[in-house]
């Protein structure tokens, strides 16, 4: 399912088209096509082994694609463009014996900042990520969470045009997750496109503007989150109270119970169903103490996309 957007009218879009990649007999990417527009947070979802990391690495030329095109602003992406992108790989990597400040400064300069610009970025990001006091500490002496913050500082250490973040929230405590989420959103507000993968779907739902779901190397859903939800062929009905224990939904065409527990019922119905008619049918069977009729959550969308 693809929801069309007028992305191409925006400047500096990253477009990945028909990407293929095989590792021996294993197909990692099978014609994957999607876009990362500027200023948008794009949640990149998929089961393990679906091709997320391979697609992200291909943006930096870290895997040689079988075929496909990666365009930036409509032109083939080159090394100079990619140097303007921030990258946090799934397998984190820092120099353990370098200090936090030196590390961020080094990567800022590798990505194109001059000496004074790099210094400004270091001050800004270490301050923003609460690492100011650890500036002179060697990375190996930091906790896992703080190392993760340094990793983010490294990928943000210059005014990047695009951020590619592979599982940026894994292993973080809720406070760190909130900080990192805020920081990434600020970057999107500045105008940078952000492509981030995560298995924490609730978190992605809170953060992302757009969503790309990939399965077995193919993009199966993409578009603005709200548009994708609205475009779903299903609606989800939550009923609580005595009506949850009766089979009133037998009268709703194509209704499918997903969960029946105590006095709670969750149904999937066609999007064409009338919410008022569904509520009336429930009320006619027994008392209803709670009722919700909604488009799918991101988790629902994910399950729909992967299981069909």
């Amino acid at each position, binding site marked *: 399912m693809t929801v069309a957007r007028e992305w191409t009218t925006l400047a500096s879009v990253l477009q990945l088209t028909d990407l293929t990649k095989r590792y021996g007999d294993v197909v990692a990417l099978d014609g994957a096509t999607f876009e990362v527009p500027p200023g948008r947070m794009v949640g990149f979802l998929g089961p393990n082994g679906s091709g997320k990391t391979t697609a992200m*690495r291909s943006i*930096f*030329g*870290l*895997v*040689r694609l079988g075929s496909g095109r990666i365009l930036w602003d409509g032109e083939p992406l*080159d*090394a*100079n463009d*990619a*140097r303007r*992108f921030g*990258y*946090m*790989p799934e*397998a*984190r*990597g*820092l*120099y*353990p*014996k*370098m200090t936090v400040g*030196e590390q961020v400064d*080094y*990567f800022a*300069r*590798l*990505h*194109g900042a001059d000496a004074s610009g790099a210094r400004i970025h270091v001050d800004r990001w270490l301050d923003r990520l609460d690492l100011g006091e650890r500036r002179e500490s060697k990375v190996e002496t930091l906790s896992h969470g703080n190392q993760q913050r340094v*990793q983010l500082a*490294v*990928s943000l250490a210059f005014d990047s045009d695009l951020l590619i973040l592979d599982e940026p929230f894994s292993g973080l405590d809720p406070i760190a997750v909130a900080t990192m989420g805020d920081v990434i959103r600020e970057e999107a507000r500045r105008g940078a496109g952000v492509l981030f993968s995560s298995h924490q779907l609730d978190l992605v739902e809170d953060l992302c503007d757009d969503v790309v779901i990939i399965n077995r190397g193919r993009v199966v859903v993409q578009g603005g989150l709200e548009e994708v939800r609205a475009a779903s062929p299903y609606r989800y009905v939550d009923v609580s109270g005595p009506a949850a224990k009766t089979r009133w939904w037998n009268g709703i065409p194509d209704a499918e119970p997903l969960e029946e527990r105590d006095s709670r019922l969750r149904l999937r119905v066609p999007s064409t169903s009338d919410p008022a008619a569904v509520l009336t049918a429930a009320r006619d069977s027994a008392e209803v103490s709670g009722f919700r009729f909604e488009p799918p959550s991101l988790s629902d969308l994910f399950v729909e996309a992967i299981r069909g």
Partner: protein
Amino acid sequence: MSSTRQIRLVAMREIRARIGSRAYQISTVAIALIAVGGILAAQILPDLFEDEPFDLGLLPATADQESALREVASSFDREIEFFTYDSLGSAEAALGEGDLDAVLVAPDQLQFQDEVDTTLESIVRQSLFAMQLEERAEELGLTLDEAQSLIAPAMVQSEVVEPAAPADNGDEDIGQGVGALSAIALLFAISFYGNWVLVGVIEEKSNRVVEVLLAAVAPWELLVGKVLGILALAVGQIAVGGAALAGALVATEGTEALPTVALAGLVMAVVWLVIGLLLYNFMYAAVGATVNRPEEATSATFPLMVPLMGGYFVGLIFIPGNPDSLVARVLSIFPLTAPLTMPSRIASGGGSPIEVVIAITLALVTLAGVIWLAARIYSGGILQSSKVGFLTAFRRAREVR
């Protein structure tokens, strides 16, 4: 963003990261100490091995022998210190305590404590003979000159049809010594700094920072920056060693000692050092990219050890004595052994300027090929999470953007 800038940034990080490390500081001090120690040893060791003067006891009856004995001793290139005693008893006591090597009891009687020193015995015998010659000549009614002419050895005049070039054995020995030393120093430098490159590459690979780096730097830029950074550190350490060496020379011998160090030889040694470090360090980096742990590096570096050790042994043992043999010629021109063998050849008096030019040209051409090959293997191996063969890494080399 130019490649030069990226390479410079990588090289500078390498330099900054290592120059502040205790390992670099300790090894720099060690190299300076070895250089100073070498000069001091060269000053002290000859004195240690120089023959000490004989301590000879004289009695009133033999005291007049002193000048004749000193004269004969000088023809033996030896010195005698004389100690005169009033009595045989006191002289024997000094001999017993080890203060004397011998006592000249009478002009023809020499007393040792436990072992006869044949050199001292010969000096005394010859001195006595010279003294007696005059008396015997008188008895025979001859002048001393007549007697000396009677016993003078027959003279043979030798002519050389084609005189060989004047050879100074001292210089030749020094040249051979410098040749052997240069092979040792180059093997040490290439192995030492090559190991830095190897371990550095493996560390970046195993802690995965290389993936973050390669998002901003092309693999070949990362490779070249790392090798050049370590080359700069190596040259810095060697310069410190050289300065310490020159300082120690000036301190012990004065400034006039410096010009005796052959400048051309030194320049050649530095040229070959740089070529050798570049050639091998690029190869060490390629090897490092194909393994994941330092333990795996030993077997992976074996192909590099073959030319390295081969060149070393030939440069150390064979070339100093045979600088212009066929083996020496071939190995000093073959690019992978030339850095270890050519300086040894030159120091040992071999190697014509044209051979040196050919060897350097070949080494530079090979270096270009090695950089290309190493960059391919490095690119293909550095992002693999398991150990890969050279050929697999070469094939998997990603397209460098």
